[in-house]
């Protein structure tokens, strides 16, 4: 199966892939054995892929995080959770398909899983609004989180959004209030909360699912207060300076660890989570099981107190 190398820095990989396909076609057509040559090229491809993916720039990581074939929340829900029952609606306005959630089992334990959901194609993206939720999406998420707390189940949130949707209806229905409420309530929910940035962690719209006891990031995910394009537009009036902005914003998983804002990095297969979604899923599953098990041992009141203390310590200032 050919992998579509869609990103600009993957061009050498796409070229090797093309050569392999070509060889294979010629071999088939003429009935000659080209396995040796193909093997050599495939080795070369794997080495090159490793080289490229081991030294991604911040902007390249943003591109991988946004990759159209990257696994999304529903993919992980079907690959590493069982017994998933999706629950819909905020009970106030409508169901927002940009956020999905419901009961599921992780290693036999009932958990509440909530995550942003992007679409795979244009049609689905229109439905999912490219993973940009309206207030009702955040209100549904809070409703489900409160239900989880009531029934003593851990909450797992999967973060993958460019940001909360900036539109007329979203503003009318109180996007600010919805985000502010989730952030406040999550800080005090008396049940374990684990958040994982699986792709794009876009600003307040990400944080509104991301106040947690443990925050994990996939190796090629990003978490930022503003998109590199938005930052470049504001600072230099030029969205094409996004590389410079991505460097400056310190938005990679390594950066966030260094800043003390996330707890753990989940590795990805070489070539990114989209290159081998099953392997990515296994890494995620292992990290979640370990983390949830640790949190299960802590009394809820203690979890909440620790969570408050953890956020109270985030910041960089001098107290002269």
């Amino acid at each position, binding site marked *: 199966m050919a992998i579509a190398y869609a990103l600009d820095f993957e061009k050498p990989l796409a070229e090797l892939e093309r050569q392999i396909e070509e060889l294979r076609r010629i071999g088939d057509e003429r009935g000659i054995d080209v396995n040796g040559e193909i093997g050599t090229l495939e080795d070369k491809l794997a080495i090159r892929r490793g080289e490229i993916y081991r030294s991604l720039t911040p902007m390249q990581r943003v591109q991988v995080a946004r990759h159209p074939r990257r696994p999304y929340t529903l993919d992980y829900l079907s690959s590493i959770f069982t017994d998933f029952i999706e629950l819909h609606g905020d009970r106030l306005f409508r169901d927002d398909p940009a956020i999905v959630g419901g009961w599921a089992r992780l290693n036999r334990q009932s958990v509440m899983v909530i995550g942003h959901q992007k679409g795979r194609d244009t049609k689905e993206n229109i439905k999912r609004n490219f993973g940009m939720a309206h207030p009702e999406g955040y209100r549904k998420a809070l409703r489900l989180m409160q239900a989880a707390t009531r029934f003593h189940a851990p909450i797992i949130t999967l973060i993958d959004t460019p940001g909360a949707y900036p539109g007329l209806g979203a503003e009318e229905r109180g996007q*600010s209030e919805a985000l502010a*409420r989730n952030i*406040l309530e999550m800080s005090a929910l008396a049940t374990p909360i684990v958040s994982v940035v699986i792709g794009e962690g876009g600003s307040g719209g990400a*944080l509104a699912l991301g106040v947690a006891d443990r925050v994990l990031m996939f190796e090629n995910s990003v978490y930022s207060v503003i998109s590199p394009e938005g930052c470049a537009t504001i600072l230099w009036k030029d969205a094409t300076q996004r590389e410079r902005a991505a460097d400056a914003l310190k*938005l990679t998983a390594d*950066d966030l660890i260094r800043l003390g804002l996330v707890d753990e990095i989940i590795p990805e297969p070489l070539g990114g989570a989209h290159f081998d979604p099953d392997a990515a899923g296994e890494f995620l599953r292992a990290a979640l099981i370990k983390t949830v098990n640790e949190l299960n041992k802590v009394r809820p009141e203690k979890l909440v107190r620790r969570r408050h203390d953890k956020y109270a310590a985030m*910041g*960089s200032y001098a107290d002269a």
Partner: protein
Amino acid sequence: MAVMAWFKKERKPRTAPRERLEIPADAWEKCESCGHVDIREKFQKALNVCPECNTHKRFSAEEYVELLTDEGSWRELYADLKSGDPLHFEHYADRLIAAQKKTGASDAIYTGIAKLDARPLHLGVMNFRFMGGSMGSVVGEKIARLARRSADKRIPMVIVCTSGGARMQEGALSLMQMAKTSSAISLMKQAAVPYISILTDPTTGGVSASFAMQGDVILAEPGAVIGFAGQRVIKQTIGQDLPEGFQTAEFLLEKGQIDDVVPRASLRETTSRLLQHMRGAKIKTTAPEAAA
């Protein structure tokens, strides 16, 4: 004692000087909304609200402190907190120094303890002149400390908000200040200590999506622009012009997003009365008013 120099400086009485025959050109002020021209003193006496069209022009952070506290009662807290440059973000260090010079403030919020109608109050006032009132680590830390102090000492908190949002130059650290402030305010909710947030022009982004929208009561000044997304971004996203009055305080009131729109001249009294309700304290009985 942490009484600020600006505080003493601002203590001048708000009375107009004797009328002079010659009024110097720079003593006049023009309202940008309706074109009304008046003596600057008159604008000042009206708390920088146009006497003709009621447009609420910007009011300084120092002036809000004066407006919302009993004279001489204000004591600034956490004044020494200074921002770092954790990302070594280009020009951030210089911009901080420039903003400190320009405003005389250490960062984009004053926090302190004061009295309002003889009752203790924790007050935070954001300063739009300091990097657009953006929230970085210092703003987050000051609000979080003030809120925790409120919960501990059972002193109500009022925050006058104005901000373009999170401070980009601090990256994800500034984003996390939304969680930090919210977590501290949740402690106040648990302790049932009242918090009033007052939204002034403009209040957007990470500030509106955190403590600004978490008040037990949320008030806004007339005409203030309040919202999550900036208008330029929304226009770009939806590809059409925004309706008249979109994201104004009046719009938010109509949509059920805030408790009331309160003119600047009534802010002090409204805040004081609300706090008395939420404290459960009795309003002092006053002698019946004489018929006018």
